[in-house]
């Protein structure tokens, strides 16, 4: 068996892959995994978004991979720099669940749905069509995008596997 290239994306991290192999992030809960794909060149990018907006950031040096409003433009810029055609780019995403169910007054409790909304808004603003999503629920997901096909594989403990 030929060993497949796997590019890993950590939490609050982003990365790109070209030609073949998989780009993967594990254990998405309220975080959202956003992928951008350029089918003609077979290049893809993935971000593991943790928080909806960088407005709330209080950190010294901003980690742009962490926030929906900064991670997606950065992914776009990276893919364009690799020669991607902006008009061919498509997006898929998964995650944004609510792992624990209680209706606390704390806004953090709703962070999953807010992450999802924020990612969608940013994609819309950038004019990148969202082809498919698997978001919400109350369970964790691991996702992998196959670079040669653009298929997004999703695994979860409770709901099994699916592909988008």
């Amino acid at each position, binding site marked *: 068996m030929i060993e497949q290239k796997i590019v890993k994306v*950590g*939490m*609050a*991290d982003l990365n790109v892959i070209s030609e073949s192999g998989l780009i993967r992030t*594990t*254990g*998405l*809960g*309220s*975080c959202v995994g956003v992928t951008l794909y350029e089918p003609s060149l077979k290049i893809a990018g993935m971000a593991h978004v*943790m*928080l909806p907006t960088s407005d*709330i*950031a*209080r*950190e*010294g040096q901003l*980690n742009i991979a*962490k926030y929906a409003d900064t991670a997606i433009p950065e992914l776009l810029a990276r893919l364009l720099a690799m020669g991607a055609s902006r008009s061919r780019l498509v997006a898929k995403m998964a995650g944004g*669940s609510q*792992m*624990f*169910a*209680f209706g*606390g007054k*704390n806004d*953090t409790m709703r*962070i999953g749905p807010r992450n999802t909304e924020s990612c969608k808004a940013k994609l819309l603003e950038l004019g990148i069509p969202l082809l498919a999503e698997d978001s919400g629920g*109350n*369970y*964790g*997901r*691991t996702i992998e995008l196959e670079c040669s096909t653009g298929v997004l594989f999703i695994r*979860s*403990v*409770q709901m099994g596997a699916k592909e988008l």
Partner: protein
Amino acid sequence: MDAFRYFKEFKMDVLKEVGNIGAGNAATALSRLLDKPIDMGVPKVEILPFEQVADIVGGAEQIVVAIFLRVEGEAPGNLFFILNPEAAKNLLRRLKGIDIGQNDSFNEMEISALNEIGNILAGSYLSSLADFTKLSMSPTVPSLAIDMAGAILSYGLLQYGEMGDDALLIDTKFLEGTQEIEGQFFLIPDPASFAKIFESLGVPLEND
């Protein structure tokens, strides 16, 4: 990370003691529940990159049973009691009057029992901590999840997400002899809570 610049060894020791007191009380509660002596590891205080937090329980995709509650009050934070599914089954088997299924999944009764165990342990952890620090700390209703460790624990890191890419957690292991009842407590105080905790214990904050 800036917020942790001031964490000298002495402060780590103070936080270890905080973990020790909380977990000690929880261990006592568990040993009463099971009518067995329960040992406890020495608490660890760790400043970890987000990416590595789930590694403490076997990696981001490791399936764990987690009881989570939010700590509200003067020193807010997140508290997790985490077991591997096998340890959770072993724990349930030791409780009288519960009908334990033979398969790997958890039935309604088992989940309810685990929730209650988590409730008792987390409650005793927290109440001793509140006594010790004289800070008001009240738990929310606990919530249980059986899922990937990464998905579960990342929830406890959100408050840190706004400040950086590391979190500070107090981690204590439970052991019961050679038997496989092993669980872990994670207390992840909100970043702003440290000053409160140190202040309440008379630990000077400035110039170190």
